């Protein structure tokens, strides 16, 4: 029983890192631009498909495919910002909510038309034979993916903290008008932010897609789980979301193992509800009034 729990925990951590990556993409756009991007799940999905496209159709290697996926998804994100978000800047926020929802419909249907509705496999160069450490079974693919997710998250946090562009982004988040007065080009930074948010979620899609498979509707649940993670981890806290993601992965694994696999998706929401009801302002100190 303990062994089982242990294994579930380890598995959960791996999946959780990817959840965190997906949620960070959402958090970037939500926390910084105050935009609820209903198409974030589709950006995640496109990341998976771009990776598939690169490795199967273009025939590049595993890692270059992931990088390609991130770049291509970032491009889609920027495009989305220009076409569906910017024109609605002055309107009440739920207009943007609905327009991103429209974009999500478009992207999902487009993926269906281009690649067909069936799930696709991304071939992996890793073998399935397990690496056994004590009672724990691991695979090289899972370790690799965990490492990539970790590296991406750390790079992002560093970027946000230490680079000029990162500081500009944080300034924009704090106070748009003040940032404008400081000479920060809000439009350009907004596009960059959108691109980064898209790239992060796209990376998650590429990594998860490589582990399992990609299909057009794969972004729906991760979007909602991403929201749950941002709420629990705190708007604006990279480490908070990361930890929340890991916890979610572990909680899901334990639920599947000890309760029923059918309730797995419930965990994110149930946990989030419990957290919110105990601490209505969310877990982070930024979360007081939300958006």
């Amino acid at each position: 029983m303990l062994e089982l729990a242990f294994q579930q925990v380890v598995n959960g951590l791996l999946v959780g890192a990817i959840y965190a990556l997906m949620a960070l993409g959402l958090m970037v756009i939500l926390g910084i631009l105050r935009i609820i991007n209903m198409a974030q799940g589709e950006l995640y999905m496109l990341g998976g498909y771009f990776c598939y496209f690169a490795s199967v159709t273009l025939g590049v290697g595993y890692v270059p495919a992931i990088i390609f996926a991130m770049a291509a998804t970032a491009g889609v994100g920027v495009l989305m910002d220009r076409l569906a978000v910017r024109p609605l800047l002055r309107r009440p926020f739920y207009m943007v909510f609905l327009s991103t929802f429209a974009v999500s419909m478009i992207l999902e249907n487009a993926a269906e038309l281009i690649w067909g509705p069936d799930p696709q496999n991304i071939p992996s160069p890793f073998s399935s034979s397990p690496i056994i450490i004590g009672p724990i079974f691991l695979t090289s693919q899972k370790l690799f993916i965990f490492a990539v997710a970790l590296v991406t998250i750390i790079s992002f946090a560093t970027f946000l903290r230490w680079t000029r562009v990162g500081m500009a982004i944080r300034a924009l988040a704090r106070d748009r008008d003040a940032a404008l007065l400081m000479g920060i080009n809000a439009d350009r930074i907004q596009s960059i932010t959108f691109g980064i948010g898209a790239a992060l979620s796209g990376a998650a899609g590429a990594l998860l897609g490589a582990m399992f498979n990609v299909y057009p509707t794969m972004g729906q649940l991760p979007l909602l789980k991403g929201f749950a993670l941002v709420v629990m981890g705190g708007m604006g806290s990279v480490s908070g979301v990361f930890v929340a993601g890991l916890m979610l992965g572990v909680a899901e694994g334990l639920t599947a193992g000890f309760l029923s696999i059918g309730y797995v998706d419930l965990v994110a929401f149930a946990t989030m509800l419990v957290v919110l009801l105990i601490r209505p302002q969310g877990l982070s100190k930024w979360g007081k009034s939300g958006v």
Partner: protein
Amino acid sequence: MSRTGTWLAWLLALAALPALMPNPYVQYVVNSALILAFATIGLNVIFGYAGQHAFGFPVFFGVGAYASALLSIDAALPVGLAIPAGALVAGGISALIGFPSFRLRGIYFGVATIAFSYVIYIIAQNWVGLTHGPMGIPLVPPLNLLPDRAAFGVSRDVQTRLILVSTIAIVIFMLDRILRSPIGRAWLAIRENENLASSLGIAPLRYQMAAFVTGAVISGLGGGFYAHYVGFVSPTELGFHYIGVVFIMLIAGGTSTLAGPLIGSVVFGVLPELLRVAEMARNLLLGVILLLCIVAMPEGLAGIWKRLQAGRAGHGPRSLDAPMPAVTHMAEEIAQIAPSLSTSGSLEIRDLTKQFDGLTALQAVSFIIQPGEVVGLIGPNGAGKTTLFNVITGVLPPTSGSVFYCAREIGGRTPHAIAALGITRTYQITSIFPELTAAENVMVATHLWSCHNPFDALLRSKRFRTAEVAVGRTAEMALALVGLQASRHIPAGALSYGDQRRLEVAVALATGARFILLDEPAAGLNAGETEELCGLIRRLRSAGFTVVVIEHDMRMVMSLCDRIIVINYGRKIFDGSPKEAAVHPEVVDAYLGAGTSDA
């Protein structure tokens, strides 16, 4: 054509037109759209009117469907009873969900509603004993208006549509009555500025819950019709598919109008079927159309309709216009503007302390304000004056110490409870309901003494009508008093700064409160406007009001106030007449500076 006339004409067209095309497929599509209209109208109550962004709300459509289906099958309830019963079940469940959710602010509220909706979906999927799980509930008994024999060959589709259109008409009629009543005004107020609404005596949670449950009952009603029309209920009805569809219908149709949800439902209920000509790319086309709609039509389709009709300015909800009787003379007595909420009394602050995480904003402050006084509260910026107001009006609870009004402890009570005692305030930063007109702003303020019983509103009882006439009169007089009569139909957000300040005063007077706290009312006003303000405050005093003013304009304070209280760094350092204050060493040191003379 009058409003009622327009409505009747369109409803008749809805009922009759598709009957000219007896194609059952067309009938089905139109009926399905009308069924979803219930969900859209219900969503509009909470989202458009009350302004609460409950993203998971359309789940109550599915809940109503399940409830009605199960009641008619397992409990053998006749369909005609099962549908309303199912709607009530949806309302009950919404109460369970709404209550904890409303503790959350901002986006957290919306996300919580989505989470709850997903929980409901999972329960339906897995509680196979109750809901049949993913297999769904087949053979749900149909809704027949007339038994087949007596139907005169009128098809079930047409019968259903007649039932749907009449029910929608009744629902809209009832909603309209509620909206043009203090309840509807309260919803709009909460949407526009929850804090202000609360300080005017509107209990936010009560009205949010009312909107939530009302919307859920309406949505559940639609769900019941769905179950007995399609004949099959499955967890899909509780899923994200319908949530998305209903939101599209609402926002494309136009929120906060009565017609918007209906228009949106009909158009976007029919559109996907039309797009079947491109079967595989339907969602793509739908998404593109939706995007175009959003970018090109900010007010939704209902807004377009308004523009098609000549002469509408198209701002804010028009349904609030109460008849405004002409005022032949200025109210000589300010006290006549609104009935007094309660007898005047003294306000006593005893040893009041307020701390924020280590910062002490108020330290053991004590004073008494007698009824009929005009007291000035002065001190440097950051001294704690606004904090004091916040504690008195219930926005903040005291850390220690007490606040007594009419000898009753009010410290720590909610803002709306304190407002009911007859205390009202204005704010340092202009606080109004921006989308509502000036007149509507003032009418909201009458909430506490108006008739806000829903039954009275629905039946338009004598008591209600009398109260509404009084409300209209009050609004007229209050606006006349501050000189804003000409601007009564202008959205408050569009008024000039000075006019907004005046509106705030009118709002405060309309509440019927006799104890008024003014927070820097002269800020940003020029000399002439300040004189007007002083004149108004003097009139308030002669009418028996008690006024406490926070001000930095010393000339005004000295000439106006009977008494001055000085706060510095959270402590009261002086309490006495203006003359004494001017020469008191501590006051001069902290605030006035040497060489200040009163005008």
